[in-house]
């Protein structure tokens, strides 16, 4: 008992330092929430009244003819879900091929994967812009989804390849001698082994799509395909109309789904960092 108490005492300085360092963050988060439901006189930090005015965006567009928050959320949801589904399904098959099949160009693809993984893809944006323009996909959600998927794929394939690599070859050998063809082996025997990776990648690419900002901003600046991230930026970009309390309210609206997903799926998400190794 004595020993454990000693332990606690030794930790106090460390805890004090951590509290001091994180206090500004905590204060900011607290004010982020308080500011959205109160009015505060200029120059003061003490609120003087309650209001729901900053949440007015929930019930109608902020400016006449502007998008409603719900259509924006819908766009973002479509964008993030499509990204997640396409990234996951392509990664699932591409990674299997790279992990297991002795196909021509395997070395090239593997090398390309690593290079693209480390490549600052934003530098490609001008070229991508031109291609989308040429294909008639500029200013459409479909175009942004395609680009986002392309940028996410190296990561997705690499992660899934790690999961496939950890499935013992013998399981597939056993399946094949048991009489199943390669596709059946993949579907019935291998896929269930990489299921944790699949779930993690699905959530991860959804969140990545949800928080994407640069691509929609550059490739789909019109009102119709707008997503929450660009909308949020628009609120403070307009200097006649820089309403920080409104900005904070919209931010909370935007961040809530992410928090909820993290809370529900945090265990599954951790799998991605384990690289498929079984504990």
């Amino acid at each position, binding site marked *: 008992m004595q020993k454990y108490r000693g332990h606690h005492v030794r930790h106090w300085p460390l805890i004090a330092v951590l509290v001091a360092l994180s206090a500004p963050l905590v204060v900011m988060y607290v004010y982020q929430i308080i500011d959205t439901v109160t009015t505060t006189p200029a120059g003061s930090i003490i609120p003087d009244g309650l209001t729901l005015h900053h949440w007015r965006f929930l019930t109608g567009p902020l400016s006449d003819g502007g998008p409603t928050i719900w259509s924006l959320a819908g766009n973002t949801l479509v964008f993030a879900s499509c990204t997640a589904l396409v990234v996951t399904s392509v990664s699932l098959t591409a990674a299997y091929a790279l992990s297991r099949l002795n196909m021509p160009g395997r070395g090239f693809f593997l090398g390309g994967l690593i290079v693209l993984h480390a490549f600052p893809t934003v530098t490609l944006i001008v070229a991508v812009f031109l291609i989308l323009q040429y294909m008639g996909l500029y200013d459409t959600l479909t175009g942004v989804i395609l680009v986002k998927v392309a940028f996410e794929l190296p990561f997705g394939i690499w992660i899934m390849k790690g999961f496939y690599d950890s499935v013992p070859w*013998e399981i597939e*050998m*056993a399946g*094949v*001698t*048991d*009489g*199943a063809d390669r596709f059946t082996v993949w579907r019935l025997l291998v896929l*269930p082994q990489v299921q944790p990776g699949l779930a993690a990648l699905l959530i991860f690419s959804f969140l990545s799509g949800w928080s994407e900002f640069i691509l929609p901003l550059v490739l789909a600046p019109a009102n119709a395909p707008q997503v929450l991230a660009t909308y949020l930026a628009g609120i403070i970009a307009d200097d006649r109309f820089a309403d920080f309390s409104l900005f904070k309210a919209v931010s909370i609206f935007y961040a809530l789904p992410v928090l909820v997903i993290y809370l529900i799926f945090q265990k599954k998400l951790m799998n991605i960092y384990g690289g498929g190794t079984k504990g």
Partner: protein
Amino acid sequence: MRLVLEGFTKRFGDTTVIDALDLTVADGEMIALLGPSGCGKSTTLFAIAGLHQVDEGRILFGNRDVAHVSPQERNVGIVFQNYALYPHMTVAQNIAFPLRVRGERVVEMDRKVREIAGLVQIGELLERKPAQLSGGQQQRVALARALVRKPDVLLLDEPLANLDAKLRMEMRSEIRRVQLETGITAILVTHDQVEAMSICDRIALMKDGGIVQIAEPAEMYINPMDRYVASFLGNPPIAFLDAMADEELRLAGGASLGAAGRLQGLDRLVLGVRPEHYGPGKGVPLEGVVVMLETHGREDLFEVELAGCGRLRAILPAGSGTRIGTNVNWGIDMDHIFVFSPDGRRL
């Protein structure tokens, strides 16, 4: 079913791993492919299963050449060292998998699974997942899964290597019992000579991608073809001494072992002496000193340094009282030694 390999050749890139290997396994026979790692025994097994492509030669199941038939159409059952059970399926689903991909009726599958599970004595484990089983139980499931489709050949790839010593002995006799009961032709790949000797009808001893000797275990032990075979079989292993022969057979240190006979005139020889053929009261006494002693309970294993010409092992019943450092005058039973040329040929 009779299994024949004719001129089986396997290359990986430019390296020839197996060069024109011939092997015949009789119907219902259990044969061991024995050898150190890298000798090509698993490669041979995988080629029989169809997991490796055959570069040259024929593989006959009965009269059917399967060398270029896909593994799905070969009807072999295979048991791997790590069992390779499907972790997300129950034991029953694991065993039923080969039947399921063949599209058998559920009732029929259920009957066959129960029958085979009874044979390998895992009837009460059918609803468990592989992770809930011990190593020995997992190996039984793997065996059941390999056998449930009534394969033409049963292939066992180091099936006991992952088990602890006690379980290994138990599973060893279990595999043999099941093999005899089903009368299936079986090939056991192993690097453990005890395993091969104890449960197989014949042993094919392999080295560098070829078979050195095929014989029944006892025959191979008593009559090894060369130094490699002699050194591979036997536990504790055989010991070798350099020798020469003028009129008398002499050890390198000069001690005489008696008349040279047919060996006369060969000035470089290697003698192979098994531990049971060296000890007190056997043949010509030789001066030596005990340098190592291992107590095995029922027996003691000695290593004896002979004056200037190498070491011999002796295995004696426990309780002889001989200790490390004791000078001994034990002899070699000359009727049971093997004589090899310096390059390892049996003379």
